[in-house]
């Protein structure tokens, strides 16, 4: 990589079949680390996860493997474990999400890695962590958003009003697993900072309990939430003529801006509404008026006027609107990348930046074994290509 990034010069070896581990690696790659995926002969399971592209390949893989390298090795073989050792000799971090019971056979158990590579940060990323009574439990995204407590609280607001009898709802995509990935990457870099090679046991469930911390605090002080009642007292998801907006006013001046946005209707001039507690108590009535009014509004003009008046409001952007957004374009958060099968797409490079410019992705998600020359074992003639 020509440009200097925060993690330039750091090699990471990633052996991950799930989104959490892969996302940890992806974030490190976005910050300049050289991340080498070790794929089994059956190839990364993420290559088969949706959403799928018209060319039959995985958009998820294209996104989470962008910027990485690929080596295909069978860690169940002596040769494969030799290749792993070669890669780890030059690495500072190993990311592994292999279920605990399978690690020994692949040479990935904690003790062996610590003995052979004492300076390495060995990052374990598992749904429920590597220690504790549930360490052996398995989970996919939907189990994890519920194990962390947020699933039970969703949806709230308009969806909960419309469909109170339906089951709780997950966040789209891989929210919970990605929280695990971010927390895992943070933990690995903190361990690396300490200068002490060690084993770091990250849990996706723990990461979700952490980002859902309010729930535990509310449990302690007796103000437990439920999806049917945790809606904002007024505001929230508001339907307009041509789409939906989100509206949330927390501060007094924002409420006053909202009244002006609404055209200072008679009902809003009620002196009692100057008291936030009164507004909260009469939230249903306020929201009825806001929703009735908004149905005649057009999203784009409404949002622009709201922000002018200091009223926090945003359009519910479709994916296409995010990609083509003027703000996103000005900040250059997406990078055009051509996949190996020829499909052109826009990839968000990173969720943060280290100066005025967004980080760049060094390469598209690799074909299997593209970087096989990084190891002397597992020669190309012997590897299996899909």
């Amino acid at each position, binding site marked *: 990589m020509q440009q200097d990034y925060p993690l330039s010069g750091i090699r990471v070896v990633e052996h991950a079949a799930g989104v959490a581990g892969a996302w940890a690696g992806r974030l490190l790659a976005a910050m300049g680390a050289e991340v080498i995926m070790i794929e089994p002969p059956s190839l990364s399971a993420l290559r088969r996860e949706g959403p799928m592209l018209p060319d039959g390949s995985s958009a998820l893989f294209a*996104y989470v493997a962008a910027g990485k390298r690929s080596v295909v090795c069978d860690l169940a073989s002596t040769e494969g474990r030799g290749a792993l050792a070669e890669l780890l000799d030059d690495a500072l971090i190993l990311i592994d999400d292999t279920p605990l019971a399978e690690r020994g056979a692949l040479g990935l158990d904690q003790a062996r890695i610590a003995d052979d590579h004492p300076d390495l940060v060995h990052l374990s990323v598992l749904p429920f962590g590597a220690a*504790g009574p549930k360490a052996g439990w398995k989970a996919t995204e939907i189990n994890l958003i519920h194990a962390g*407590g947020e699933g039970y609280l969703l949806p709230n607001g308009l969806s909960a009003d419309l469909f109170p009898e339906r089951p709780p709802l997950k966040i789209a995509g891989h929210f919970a697993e990605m929280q695990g990935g*971010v927390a895992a990457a943070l933990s690995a870099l903190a361990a690396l900072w300490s200068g002490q090679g060690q084993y770091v046991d990250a849990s996706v469930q*723990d990461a979700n309990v952490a980002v859902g911390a309010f729930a535990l605090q509310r449990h302690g002080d007796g103000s437990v939430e439920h999806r049917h009642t945790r809606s*904002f007292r007024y505001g929230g998801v508001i339907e307009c003529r041509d789409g*939906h907006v*989100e509206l949330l006013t927390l501060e007094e001046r924002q409420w006053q801006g909202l009244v002006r946005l609404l055209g200072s209707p008679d009902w809003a001039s009620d002196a009692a509404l100057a008291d936030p507690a009164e*507004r909260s108590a009469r939230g249903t009535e306020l929201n009825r008026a806001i929703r009735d009014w908004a149905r005649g509004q057009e999203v784009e003009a409404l949002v622009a006027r709201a922000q002018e008046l200091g009223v926090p409001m945003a359009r519910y952007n479709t994916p296409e609107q995010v990609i083509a957004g003027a703000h996103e374009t000005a900040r250059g958060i997406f990078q055009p990348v051509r996949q190996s099968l020829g499909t052109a797409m826009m990839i*968000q490079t990173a969720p943060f930046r280290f100066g005025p410019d967004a980080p760049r992705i060094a390469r598209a998600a690799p074909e299997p074994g593209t970087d096989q020359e990084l190891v002397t074992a597992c020669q190309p003639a012997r590897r299996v290509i899909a």
Partner: protein
Amino acid sequence: MKPLSGIRIADFTVHAAGPFCTHMLSQLGAECIKIESAQRPDIFRKPHAVYGRAGPASFDQVASNKLSVRLNLKHPQGIALARRIAALSDVAAESFRAGVMSRLGLGYDALRAARPDIVMVSISSSGQSGPDSHFAGYAPLFGAWGGLGYLTGYGDGPPVEMRHVMDHSVGMNAALATVAALHQRRRTGRGCHVDVAAREVASSIAGDALAAASAGVRLKRMGNADPQRSPHGVFATREADRWLSLSVSDDREWAALAEVMGRPGLAHDPRYARADARLAARDAVEALVAGWSAQVEAEEAARKLQAAGVAAHVSWRAADIADDPHMQARRAVVDVTEGDGRRRKAVGFPAIFSHGDAPAIERGTPGLGEHEDYVYGELLGLGQAERARLVDDRVIY
């Protein structure tokens, strides 16, 4: 020693996302000096009626461990003191709207003049640049801007608003970027200005969908469905409002589920035996599961399914998390004692380190200005008379 022992943070953040960032770093061992003013305390120290709740929303959790000083950033001498704190810090974190720190005289250039290798972390709704950089926003707006809100929801329903998990996800990402920037400083001697836009964290979480959309794939809200898995969803059990999440990834797991359901023949039923057939018959498959789940006790069913190798977990409430032996064994849930002796449960750090001292919450919520003897006295070397004058002049205020 904890992993980040020796790192000091001048913490100007308020609200949710920023304080969560420094909360993570403080659990990892960084010394975090929270800078507030009595005139304008962190807005999360006070209640917000829109949440329908009398007390502050989350302050106790994210303020734990932090040192608190009062400082009036509207007073020129307050700015001078802020720069002196920054000069003794490795990191300066803030979460005002873009441009506010510069207007205060605390922008990146000013802080770099005070401390040439400082890592400044700015957390905002839309970032430090771009046409929307002045926009105000909270978690539901981040999700709306970033596409995550649009994609979340029942197939026949509206978008869904993201809540505090979105804020805290922004904070977790910011903490990660901060530690990465410290690594760069260690290697090069240079600090940098980390810019975290909350809406970009939201879009990063939907990044696979955005990538697919950019290649022409039209994506819709799909509720609890999964593109590859059936059955996959959240199922009612015989207990009221007690739900079982369940996900079958392959034919072997389907056979295991069929066994647990007491209907082993379903494993060989040509209508359901293979993954593609189950996806095509998703409604029928999930009706079979729902018929079974309505008769079972949720936790017992989850245990049986896990024992059989099927991914399952009860939709947990806060009480489940608070009392869970697994979470407690991992110290993912801990007890914190406040200064007044009151004990409360708090969320611990989401990973276990094999070496060094464990990340932890050592202290509860600081009172406003509780640590001024240490910060103004010991660190800055201000004498009692000088501090008294600064208090009288409403600089330390």
